């Protein structure tokens, strides 16, 4: 028994060095060569960081495309979903009020045009994407707020649409931050 205790202690110490020093530091070192140097890829505008490429941001002004509802208000120092169950009455009221808000700010769209992702909170609260349909229902509003031709906005949406992986796997999506940056640059 005593033998096992001593062996356990020594083996644990050796493995701590291998698994917690050598392995992660090697990965971190190689990671320096990746985009964002292994600290997350940043997006800069006029020399200032305005966001991380992978993280969604809160957009509420009419001239920007809006992202999905978030349980943590896009605070990237935390992350969480709403954890609301599908039959929770309070939750269903919340969804109804999101539908009403979208209908109010996007005149001209029908209820049946609204896709589920625009009225439901994401898993992380930091979802950077919306569906193509989610962008489509906002084109008219954004074009009007910016005095742009709807066609032009539509083109920008198409340019910022991410097709399925290798064209075959998974859904397509629209990155809201990149789309809004492209709009600001017009």
């Amino acid at each position, binding site marked *: *028994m005593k033998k*096992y205790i001593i*062996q356990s202690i*020594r*083996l644990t110490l050796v493995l*701590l060095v*291998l*698994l*917690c020093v050598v*392995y*992660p530091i*090697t*990965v971190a070192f190689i990671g320096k060569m990746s*985009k964002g*140097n*292994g600290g*997350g*890829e940043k997006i800069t505008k006029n020399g200032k960081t*305005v966001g991380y*490429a*992978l*993280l*969604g*941001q*809160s957009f*509420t*002004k009419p001239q*920007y495309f809006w992202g999905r509802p978030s349980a943590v208000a896009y605070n*990237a*120092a935390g*992350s969480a*979903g*709403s*954890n*609301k*169950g*599908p*039959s*929770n009455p309070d*939750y269903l009221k919340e969804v109804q009020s999101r539908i009403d808000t979208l209908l109010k700010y996007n005149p001209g769209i029908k209820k*049946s045009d609204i*896709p*589920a*992702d625009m009225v*439901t*909170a*994401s*898993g*992380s*609260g*930091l979802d950077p994407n919306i*569906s193509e*349909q989610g962008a489509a229902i906002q084109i008219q509003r954004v074009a009007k707020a910016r005095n742009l031709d709807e066609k032009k906005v539509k083109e920008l949406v198409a340019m910022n649409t991410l097709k*399925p*992986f290798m064209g075959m*796997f*998974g*859904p397509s999506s629209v990155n809201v*931050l990149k789309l*809004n940056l492209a709009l600001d640059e017009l």
Partner: protein
Amino acid sequence: MNTELTGIIATFLLTLVIAIPLGKYLAKVFAGEKVWTDFLKPLETGIYKLSGINIKEQMNWKQQLKALLTINILWLFYGFFVLIFQDKLPFNPDGNPGMTPDLAFNTIISFVANCNLQHYSGESGVSYLTQQYVLMFLQFVSAATGIAAAVVLFKAFRDKTTTELGNFWEFFVKSITRLLLPLSFVMAIILTFSGTPASYEGKDQFISLQGDTVHVSRGPAAQMIAIKHLGTNGGGYFGANSAHPFENPSYFTNMVELIAQVIIPIAMVIAFGYFIRRKKLAWTIFGVMTIGLFMLLLPMLSSELGGNPALAKMGISQTTGAMEGKEVRFGPAASAYWATVTTIISTGSVNSMHDSTMPMSGTWQLLGMMINSFYGGCGVGLLNYFIYLIVAVFISGLMVGRTPEFLGHKVEAREIKIAAIITLLSPFLILAGTAIASYIFTSHGDAAWAVQPKNWLNNPGFHGFSEMLYEMTSSNANNGSGFEGLGDNNIFWNLSTGIVIFLGRFLPIIGPVAIAGLLGAKKFIPESAGTLKTDTKTFALMTFAVILVLNALSYFPALALGPLAEYFTMLK
């Protein structure tokens, strides 16, 4: 064809393409045969030397378990104190506080047991030191513990009669050097180049396009996310686990993480067959497990792709399926596939929030964890399945009126008693635990705990009951996912799930290893016309029936009170 469906089909096929050769490789590694990774031998020799281990020393099953338990108990003490004092230790750039004793108790058992139930949130609850030197460390060694225990079982059936089951330390170290570490390294690099942070920089701050100040938690995440999947641990770096864009940046990384968590459990089944020179047995076990996977996956896909009926009534478009708690870049199909594999295998990482999935999906998630052996966790999945096999052998033996045999060894009263205790342990822990929790919720709602019992549940009615049932089931299965609406960081849940995790981990390791050790030592009986063959389709069907009947009898009433009741209420 729908790109979401082609995505999950491709993921499953790629899993098999990697897992099957990996299984054959593992059989050779543990048998000590020549393999291409033998260049790592000097590293292993060095580890043995520094630790004072002589791998030529043969152990019987009792010594194997002693070694296993000794080192696991050591980790419990080490981790507990580091977690409590993490605020006073270095590498804490975000200045996070030390854990309360009850939270540290829960967290350390959870990570030693390969469960990774998390009652803290990664961004605010742990330091960089604890993320790596405790949590990630344990993700490696707990997975290796499970694999090594399974190899002890392999050893018992390789030779005709034996009490020498090899050296535990050798199996344990090789699981790390030949399997977990190299694969983790490759995967961590893939993740880093896909956008996951890997550096030690602390929190960042920026001003968003609209002018809000935003803080961003970062840190060495890629290293941990790799082993969290390969080791079927599931404990995430960030609170939202693999739904977080940093932990799982794209559909591509989602496929990588999905493949990573399934390959070792499948490979262990294949390795078992090749190691004991009964390949057909491995393929029948694999067949039963795979049918189990699809029986849970298909209905879950259908309910998630179908969307939330309550939202459909509001008149919006649900062509993309149910989206609450899901990420747009994965979509509902890949989220349902993930929810299935993460529950049948004891990973417990999530890429969507299970609390918000449809009621019937919740049923399949719970059932996956209750069965806990359709592939199952690293090593332990096969150990769990072994118990079902012994029960099936016993029942078949009774049906034909012969002494039951397994692989040439008589299965007698002592082995059956152990198997029966292990079989009954899960329903006892899950149902008694949920019953106590429900009692406290209804009768002692005002107890002055960190979260008052009356405020535990994030959802009313049947769904609230499901939240408690899920927490206990996940703990017993060492799964670690949760219906995260549950207010679980308080003394009741920390202590109760800690105890359930501990018993649900170590007894189902001790039981099968003991049975295997006892059987292996018995006289070998050559096959005859009267032998019950365990590698036939008939016996596979028998095992499947045993699994279904045992679990249905144990859990149907509890499932009926939770997700099933919610489902039928929503039909109205």
